[in-house]
């Protein structure tokens, strides 16, 4: 009996629990208002499943992918503000390779100017290098991550603009369309990519000791170094992963719109990603992280948006609505409130005995 009480109280203390409860509640409200919210149908013409739930997961792909890297950065006690700008950079490079010289090929169509392999790899390499630059400033320069990444956040979009001469290209190249709009195993491609990324990061951190090293460095960098962890290498790898994942998200984003949009691609993605991580229960001061929590956090953010669209609440209210729900989740997760509920749970357990 005592054992069970302890569990309830520690469960109430866990932030992930509250995130799951919040997501379920929002879904429940959706279901009550529109019972067909959960219905999923198969569209033979595209070979894809359709439905609100599928849509939520599909549309959250970019944020989920980025927030996998962001989780690690935050576990190190930092934040990466540059991810949104990197999304724009990736899109700009991809479209640059697809269209290269707009004067010669002046109408968008089902072609690519440079080999397709460049379109896929170069943006990822560049983004990973930019991530490495962030990591270098943090690890070797000893600069606070939030400032170090502010640099690329401020000038990243400028770089994207200059790469494309400030122009917006569009393309009709069908293999490129698959990334954002294709399907595999009845599921939209972004979902497949997201699953692969989440699994990849989870395996890399939890099936090796890398995750433990990240947490250790996040809590106490000096002690970690003296325990033999190469803290600098850990930081470099984490920022590089985040850059790479931003690149992947950038490819998905630009494939969805089949264009590059250096001003708006990835706008506020850094904010959403950080929010997803925090809602998912990872502490902003670093330390223990939860990838599963982050996925739920990202889903919560997207569910709210879908919810608003779906129920015809004026679309303009999305942001305000999102803010209100997030505020509730965050207040519920805040330390004083969690302690209050944990205490109550423990007391009630005691009384029933």
């Amino acid at each position: 009996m005592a054992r069970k009480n302890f569990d309830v109280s520690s469960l109430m203390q866990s932030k992930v629990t509250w995130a799951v409860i919040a997501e379920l509640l929002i879904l429940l409200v959706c279901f009550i208002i529109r019972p067909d919210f959960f219905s999923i149908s198969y569209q033979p013409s595209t070979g894809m499943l359709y439905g609100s739930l599928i849509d939520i997961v599909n549309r959250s792909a970019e944020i989920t992918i980025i927030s996998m890297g962001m989780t690690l950065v935050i576990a190190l006690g930092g934040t990466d503000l540059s991810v949104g700008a990197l999304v724009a950079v990736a899109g700009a490079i991809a479209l640059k390779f697809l269209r290269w010289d707009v004067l010669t090929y002046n109408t968008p169509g089902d072609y690519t100017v440079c080999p397709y392999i460049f379109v896929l790899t170069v943006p990822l390499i560049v983004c990973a290098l930019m991530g490495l630059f962030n990591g270098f400033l943090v690890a070797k320069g000893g600069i606070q991550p939030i400032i170090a990444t502010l640099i690329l956040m401020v000038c990243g979009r400028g770089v994207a603009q200059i790469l494309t001469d400030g122009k917006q290209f569009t393309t009709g190249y069908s293999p490129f369309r698959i990334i954002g709009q294709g399907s595999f195993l009845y599921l939209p491609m972004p979902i497949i990519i997201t699953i692969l990324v989440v699994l990849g990061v989870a395996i890399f951190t939890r099936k090796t000791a890398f995750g433990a090293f990240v947490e250790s460095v996040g809590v106490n960098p000096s002690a970690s170094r003296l325990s033999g962890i190469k803290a600098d290498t850990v930081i470099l790898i984490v920022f590089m992963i985040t850059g790479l994942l931003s690149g992947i998200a950038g490819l998905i984003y630009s494939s969805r719109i089949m264009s590059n949009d250096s001003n708006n691609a990835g706008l506020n993605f850094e904010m959403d990603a950080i929010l997803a991580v925090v809602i998912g229960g990872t502490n902003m001061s670093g330390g223990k992280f939860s990838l599963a929590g982050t996925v739920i956090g990202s889903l919560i953010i997207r569910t709210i948006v879908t919810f608003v669209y779906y129920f015809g609440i004026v679309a303009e209210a999305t942001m305000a609505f999102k803010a209100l729900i997030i505020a509730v989740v965050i207040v519920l997760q805040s330390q004083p409130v969690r302690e209050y509920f944990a205490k109550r749970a423990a007391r009630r357990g005691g009384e029933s005995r």
Partner: protein
Amino acid sequence: MTNNRQSILSKLTNPKYIMVYATIGIFFVIYAFGAFMYGDKGFMTVRTFVNLFIDNAYFGISAVGMTMVLITGGIDLSVGAVASLTGMFIAYGTTVLGLHPMTCIFAALVMGVGLGLLMGWVIHYLNVPPFITTLTGMFFARGVCSLISRESIDIHHPMIDALAGWKIYLMKYSAGHWVRIRPIAFINFNVILFVVMIIAGTFILQRTRFGRNIYAIGGNEQSASLMGLPVGRTKVLVYGFNGLCSVLAGISYALYVKSGWNLSLQGGELEVITCAVIGGTLLTGGVGYMIGTLFGVLLKSVIPALITFNGNLLSWWGKIATGGLLLLFICIQRFVVTSSARKK
């Protein structure tokens, strides 16, 4: 040793001012560069200099509050959205609802300061990181903004027109009477508001207990509370004051563009933070000066001015140059911190 303290030289060489000197120094270097390159196009005129103030007053006003927030070790991401919402209040209120501008401004003040105080309360008493709290505040303000209108609304009201059009021409004394200097340069309401806010900010930070408590909290919050300082009250008030600054910045911006738009000043919060950082404020808290912030704003705004004077460069280069500037300052800060640590 007593003499040592009183000597002005020793006071000026206090290591805590190095970052401010760096900002001022680099501003003048860049300005001199502009004068050298584009002196013939009129870069060296009073007008160019005054225009830096006119075109960036709203950033500067917001940066006053932001500097205080950063000194406490916090951050406020909601300033751009709150300023935008203020503009929307004024535009929608006067143009669509036919209210008096003062009513709208009053409503905006209640909204901005109230939101600031609320965020401060959540940050301190619920222990939610400032980044997340103010991010939510930003989403909220932006959302309300779009809820009011998604179109840009022009502002037409005699009082606003009068205030926006009011200007003092800079004069010089020549041949026995006062004449306007050429090319014509003037200061307007926004410039005066900006300068007044900088002075008020300096006074608060340097001459009041409230201001010193801000520094103490940024230095070490736990110590500050063990020393018996009112940590909670100070933090809540700082965010409230920053809300006030955002509203004033919003008014200033509304006067500048004479319209309200739900997407105006997007990303403005990070530009304001950049100004403060270039001005020598540390994001870790505890260090920062209003005079540094003033020059941070000027330094950041001289770059677009240079690009305009050049005429051939794409405006994106401005972003890249700002990023480069940020990198430079961070390296200087880093160097200052390590070299002063080595002294011990």
